């Protein structure tokens, strides 16, 4: 049956994209459509005294303006989500600021005009009076009583603080031979999708129906956001081709959908808004800067018996994603290690910077960074090799499925095998020898080897673990659907529950459906775009490589299996045989070996929609099946109990990474000589697609480690509003990532598949830090903070500490 699963097949998305026929939100034009611009704060922290759009509205081509007063009077705040559940006092967050602006670029109004140029002019004509307030930029400063406060309701910038402990952490640290400590830091960055935020909203006042086209990743966030903010019931969300997501297009975009919808409601016309690159860089959402104070309890032989850490999150100027980077630590809290005693404490600090969002990996790169930096540190302190220390602590394949101390259950994996495969591939011992020889010649080569799990699936109930006061789970597990139909002409059409943003949903699902139904992918068409009216979607509907493998593939598998039964039943009836005698090959249902006992999909299609006489009485007419999938092995610990054990995610891919770098001591420039990955993504449905996810996520993590990042001035002004200033890597600097697969299929998913989206973005920052530190061994330097810009590396190598100038 595996004609297509696991094979290279022709991309189904490729032809339209290479000819410029992809259809993105910006490609849609509606009759009478207006163009919007967003009114944004130039201040990091200020009170809005007044907003006067009078001058702008004098231009007859300016049709509608939304002011903070409109936002306050005509919309409601978003429902506080699960990431804001720990606030002592609830804080209203509207689609735009109403009284105070808390970061440069924060939206607080909008204007719609007949063309974009006029809207730009109008924006300049809106008179805004601000009362500037003291900006809060540094996390440690923000926590001091002397700091200005972002949210008066809270009276402090430490918006949330909480802790979790698993096992006997105190005991572990007491019985340790040694405690290894380190402070670590990971900075603000984002995946900066090439297509910015784009929204078209069209409100039909007569029928009270709102339709939005939006380049969003999670339909539910948009759907719920519109309902909550605008009080509308009849909402249709259409998501065409999405030009890159990476998490950026999940949360903050809902604000703009509401603002643009308001403009449409006010003007009675469709309104389009296209975000500028600089708007995205300052206000589109950043991954959280995280500071860690980590301690590891170890035995002299390298056995790690405990880990505890404090985490300070610089969450920016919003409370809606307050704990998202901390709570995600539960997803890979154990990484690949059998350490049973782990404690963590989180400090979520609001600052006058862009709000944080769930960027590729969401806090998991930080968790992995803690583990892998500390493993290297342990090796250094105990005079062991970094490989030995890791090997000593890895979960063994015969321990699978493995229950972690926090309640995760690892489905499958051979971590020692991944590590060994990697070492063999890079010829580790030879490489160390070469490194020694080159070092004698003055060349600084460094080798970093790290290992990581990549969790997949979703469970919103996870967050109850950090909020014991929460009584009802904010949802649990995940649900998504798929529909498959055998058409009258014998072809198949698929309706997925998820939108697509480059993870090849169409290609991959067609491969699965083709194998299950005995046809070929070219006879299968997948409907795009996502349409909330038509798509069989649930909470897990998302363009996310993290969810797709589980919920979408699960749903397609379920729907195709159901349809196959129907097809066989209808065929058996018409061929007058038992369904068990039948096979399907290339769209023909037949009794093997018989030349006459066969019937084509097209013939079955004509019967199913046309000819009651030939349909068995106990079979529904038509040939269509829908399936909503939930992960069948989600229990126990789906919802945390008193012990706060919880399944944060459900499948566990893994990868061992090696970074081999050369450092120029005199300039600090780091050149990646090789980057290799031995990965376990479970059953690989399409190797090109999975490799693409791995290449892309690795490249991003590497670039993050080596310098891309958001920088703020001491006044809270963003200094990185273009790709160049941000330091985005091009093809010329991006190393050629090499990938090998060593899959351990999941015993719990339909095909053994596991996640492959966030993947290599999780361990790659740690791999680079490890390699650069290794290269700098002659100077006795510790790498603790990212990013490793040339200047940062130069300062390390030359023991020249930087004065605090700017803030990441």
């Amino acid at each position, binding site marked *: 049956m595996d004609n297509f699963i696991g094979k290279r097949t022709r991309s189904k998305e490729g032809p339209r994209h290479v000819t410029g026929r992809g259809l993105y939100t910006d490609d849609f034009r509606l009759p009478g459509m207006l163009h919007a611009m967003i009114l944004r704060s130039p201040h990091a922290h200020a009170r809005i005294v007044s907003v006067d759009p009078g001058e702008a509205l004098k231009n007859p081509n300016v049709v509608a303006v939304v002011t903070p007063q409109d936002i306050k009077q005509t919309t409601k705040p978003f429902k506080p989500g699960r990431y804001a559940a720990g606030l002592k006092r609830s804080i209203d967050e509207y689609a735009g600021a109403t009284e105070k602006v808390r970061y440069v670029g924060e939206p607080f109004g909008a204007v719609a005009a007949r063309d974009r140029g006029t809207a730009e002019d109008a924006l300049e004509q809106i008179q805004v009076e601000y009362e500037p307030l003291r900006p809060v930029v540094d996390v440690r400063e923000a926590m001091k009583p002397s700091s200005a406060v972002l949210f008066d309701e809270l009276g402090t910038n430490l918006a949330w603080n909480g802790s979790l402990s698993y096992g006997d952490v105190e005991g572990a640290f007491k019985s340790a031979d040694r405690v290894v400590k380190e402070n670590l830091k990971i900075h603000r960055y984002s995946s900066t999708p090439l297509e910015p935020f784009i929204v078209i909203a069209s409100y039909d006042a007569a029928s009270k129906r709102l339709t939005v086209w939006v380049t969003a990743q999670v339909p539910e966030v948009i759907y719920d956001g519109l309902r909550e903010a605008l009080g509308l019931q009849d909402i249709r969300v259409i998501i065409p081709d999405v030009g890159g997501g990476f998490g950026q297009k999940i949360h903050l975009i809902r604000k703009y959908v509401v603002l643009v919808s308001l403009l449409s409601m006010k003007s009675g016309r469709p309104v389009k808004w296209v975000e500028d690159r600089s708007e995205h860089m300052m206000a589109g959402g950043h991954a959280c800067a995280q500071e860690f104070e980590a301690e590891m309890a170890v035995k002299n032989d390298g056995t790690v018996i405990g880990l505890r850490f404090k985490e300070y999150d610089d969450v920016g100027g919003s409370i809606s994603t307050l704990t998202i980077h901390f709570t995600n630590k539960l997803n890979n809290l154990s990484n690949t290690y059998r350490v049973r005693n782990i404690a963590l404490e989180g400090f979520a600090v609001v600052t006058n910077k862009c709000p944080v969002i769930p960027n590729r990996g969401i806090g998991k790169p930080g968790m992995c960074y803690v583990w892998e930096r500390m493993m290297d540190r342990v090796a250094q302190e105990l005079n062991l090799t970094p490989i030995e220390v890791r090997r000593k602590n890895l979960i063994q394949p015969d321990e699978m499925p493995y229950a972690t101390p926090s309640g995760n259950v690892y489905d499958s994996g051979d971590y020692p095998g991944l590590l060994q495969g990697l070492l063999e591939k890079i010829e580790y011992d030879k490489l160390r020898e070469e490194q020694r020889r080159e070092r004698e010649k003055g060349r600084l080569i460094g080798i970093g080897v790290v290992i990581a799990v990549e969790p997949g699936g979703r469970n919103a109930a996870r967050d109850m673990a950090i909020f014991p006061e929460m009584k009802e789970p904010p949802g649990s597990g995940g649900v998504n659907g798929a529909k498959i139909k055998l058409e009258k002409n014998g072809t198949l059409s698929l309706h997925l529950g998820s939108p697509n943003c480059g993870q090849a949903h169409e290609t991959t699902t067609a491969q699965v459906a083709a194998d299950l139904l005995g046809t070929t992918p070219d006879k299968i068409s997948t409907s795009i775009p996502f349409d909330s009216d038509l798509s069989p979607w649930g909470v897990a509907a998302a363009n996310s490589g993290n969810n797709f493998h589980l919920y979408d593939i699960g749903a397609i598998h379920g729907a195709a299996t159901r349809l196959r039964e129907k097809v066989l039943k209808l065929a058996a009836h018409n061929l007058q045989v038992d369904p068990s005698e039948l096979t399907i090959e290339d769209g023909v249902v037949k009794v093997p070996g018989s030349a006459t006992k066969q019937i084509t999909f097209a013939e079955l299609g004509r019967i199913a929609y046309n000819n009651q006489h030939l349909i068995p009485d106990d079979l529904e007419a038509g040939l269509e099946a829908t399936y909503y999938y939930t992960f069948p092995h989600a229990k126990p610990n789906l919802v945390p109990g008193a012990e706060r054990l919880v399944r944060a995610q459900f499948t566990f891919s893994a990868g061992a990474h090696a970074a081999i770098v050369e450092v120029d001591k005199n*300039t600090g420039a780091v050149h990646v000589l090789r980057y290799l990955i031995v990965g376990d993504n479970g059953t690989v449905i399409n190797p090109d697609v999975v490799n693409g996810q791995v290449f892309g996520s690795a490249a991003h993590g590497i670039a993050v480690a080596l*310098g891309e990042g958001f920088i703020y001035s001491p006044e809270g002004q963003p200094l990185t509003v273009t790709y160049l200033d941000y330091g985005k890597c*091009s093809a*010329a*600097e991006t190393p050629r990532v090499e990938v090998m697969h060593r899959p351990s299929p999941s015993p719990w998913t339909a095909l053994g598949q596991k996640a492959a989206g966030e993947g290599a973005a999780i361990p790659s920052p740690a791999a680079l830090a490890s390699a650069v530190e290794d290269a700098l061994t002659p100077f006795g330097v510790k790498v603790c903070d990212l990013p490793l810009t*040339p*200047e940062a590396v130069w*300062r390390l190598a030359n023991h020249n500490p930087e004065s605090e100038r700017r803030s990441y």
Partner: protein
Amino acid sequence: MIKFEYLEPTSLQETFGLLEKHGDDARVIAGGTSLLIMMRQRLLMPKVVISLARIPHFDRITYDAADGLRIGAGARHRDIELSAIVKEHYPILHETFHKVAQPRIRNMGTLGGNLSAGDPLTDPGASLIALDAEVTLSSSGGQRTLPLEEFFIDYYETALKPGEILTEIHVPPAQRPGWAHIKFTPRSVEDFATVGVAITLQAVNGTCKDVRLALNSVASTIVRAKRAEAVLRGRPATDATLREMGEIASTEVDPTDDNRGSSDYKREMVKVLVRRAAQEALQRTT
């Protein structure tokens, strides 16, 4: 983007007339790679934009062994990079223009536009100064020539007077066979240089006879480092001399903090890269 009127004169005389008529309201556009961005950001808000695209022979590149190289101000970076005569007689220019941004920009941006913008972060100026280039500035009142190193006044400020445009760049026959150009871009190659170093030198038996050293991205203009040149000129090019040259060069620059690095760091990189550039240039003389 702001509103403006777009004009395309077909001769220099016509251009000068338009510049006189519109005065401060007018900006000249050549490739447009920097002007359009500044206009979009409303840093410049001209009412009239005058294109030089239709002026005949404005992008001509000619060479004469006695006179040297003459580059029309409308020549695009890519034209200069790919010019066979440039490659043969001025390899440092070939190398420099190969490193300007990336091909899409090089196909658009012109040399005249680049120099006239007075942006200290860009590459061509330093190599041209290292080759003793001079620029011709023209207006309805006539034309004048100026050594390029005197053309740059301050950030985005040049010796161009109102009504005047840069029309030609002249590079005399190359005097010094040793050369090097280093564009230090620790992030994307597409980025502006963190530090740019251009050097030409002549050496006989390891002793430097003459040298020109210019740097970009480390001061309010592209600068010639004359005192650093003096360190090397007439002296044996030992490691110690080159080190001293770098040290002195670092005192002739005034870098600012930006995302590419702090001023301290850039000053240190000037020391390292000037030394490396001089070593590379010396190797080319043997």
